[in-house]
């Protein structure tokens, strides 16, 4: 077995107000894999992601990476697009490169915008874009540095279903072309199954991992996949695991 790119060992976290966000969690992420963390609100998915990014230090446990992280090695997509409203689309995407003093930042930013089909909006300001387009900008910014690890925190939760499917398709296409290592947080089982190779199921109060499921779907996928039986079966598998764990723990939502 290859050494994991990211390895969390016994990671636990309690918020200052006493809420136990995470019970000790072990999680290994293999390089080039697409892993989703699925679970209801309050199960510590986002906390786990922030710990993985290095933005939050866990109170106990160890976070190990197979690489020495320089700025730009970890890309983060927030639930909100989190764009700078005063900068153009290109300016927003170029930010990680400019902060690191990398030359030709705007050129590289435009290439990343091409990848998310926004090249015609390079000089627009965020307020001129739709919600889906803003999220595309956010994805372009997170990937412009070609990160070792791409962390996404419920990026499509606020979008309508049509836009969400379209962005799922595009993200999948981008991932298949670039093979970033992705950890994707969502509370949508369908979204997780469609995108991931592996799904980690979590339950709340306190947050913990209750199932780790390999998705048995072809590596090359497209929008058609959502309509097939195989897809429905995989969704059922994840949903059952989630429900069983919630019942066992007597979690009331």
């Amino acid at each position, binding site marked *: 077995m290859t050494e994991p790119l990211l390895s969390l060992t016994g990671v636990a976290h309690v918020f200052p107000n006493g809420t136990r966000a995470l019970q000790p969690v072990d999680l290994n992420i293999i390089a080039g894999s697409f892993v989703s963390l699925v679970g209801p609100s309050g199960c510590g998915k986002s906390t786990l992601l922030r710990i993985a*990014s290095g933005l939050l230090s866990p109170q106990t446990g160890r976070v190990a990476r197979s690489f020495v992280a320089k*700025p730009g090695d970890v890309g*983060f997509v927030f639930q909100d697009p989190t764009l700078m409203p*005063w900068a153009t689309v290109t300016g927003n995407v170029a*930010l*990680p490169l400019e*902060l690191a003093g990398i030359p030709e930042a705007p050129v590289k930013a435009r290439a990343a915008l091409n990848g998310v089909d926004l090249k015609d909006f390079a000089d627009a300001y965020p307020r001129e874009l739709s919600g889906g387009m803003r999220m595309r900008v956010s994805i372009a910014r997170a990937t412009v540095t070609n990160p070792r690890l791409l962390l996404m925190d419920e990026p499509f939760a606020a979008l309508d279903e049509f836009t969400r499917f379209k962005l799922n398709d595009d993200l999948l296409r981008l991932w298949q072309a670039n093979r970033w290592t992705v950890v994707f947080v969502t509370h949508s089982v369908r979204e997780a199954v469609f995108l991931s190779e592996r799904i980690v199921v979590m339950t709340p109060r306190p947050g913990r991992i209750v199932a780790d499921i390999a998705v048995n779907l072809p590596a090359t996928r497209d929008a058609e996949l959502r309509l097939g039986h195989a897809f429905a079966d995989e969704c059922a598998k994840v949903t059952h695991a989630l429900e069983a764990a919630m019942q066992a723990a007597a979690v009331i939502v």
Partner: protein
Amino acid sequence: MRKLAESLLPFAFGAVVVAAWEIAVRAGDIPAYILPGPLSILRALAVNRADLLAGLGVTVQVTLLALILAAITGAGFAFALSQSKLIERTLFPYAVILQVTPIVTVAPFVIIWVDDIFAVLLILAWMAAVFPIISNTLFGLKSVDPNLRDLFRLYGATRAQIALRLLAPATLPHFMSGLKIAGGLSLIGTVVAEMVAGTSGERSGLASRLLEASYRLELAKALACFVLLGLTGLIIYAALDWLSRRTLRHWHDSARDSERTGD
């Protein structure tokens, strides 16, 4: 066409009031030392124009210089306060005290302690203007999107990069609305300071000349000063409003035209 007519309404209203005033003064034979008519105010403006313009020059100079100083020190002070909760809790109450103390009550002390009258006026006008800049800028600094802060941290931004590329632009709209309030306050501060300091001669401002003229019952001249001061306030506000729209036009809702884009 209707829009044009509507925009002319305030001018029409003003013209009617001024005309009624002139007619009332003439018809009632009201003496000029009680209430001069608009035409005699205009005459006083023309006759004393060298005198009044010199005064206006001093007042405008003090007002603008105090405003610039207030903008720089206010923004700097707010930035310092935002750096630590402890600093804010220690110093912010003093900013409030500065604000709530009527500058008229401070003026006599400043006049005793500071020899140069121009400096006296400047200090008092600055005191009147600085608070809204401090409080608005501080509010802006505290409202910066925490996720954007995280993003800058994730990409290893230096303190200088965070200050210049995140805090400064994110705070600009709040700073600008503080500046617009401060512009009016700076003029008020200057006028009050001039009246209390009671300067006279070459270097006195428009408000001192207003006071002087009213003591001599030259009401037409005093009212001419009053009109000029009012216009100055209006121009300062319009200029700052323009500056605010200009700097924020691409992105901030406050600078947005009525046009809205839907999706």
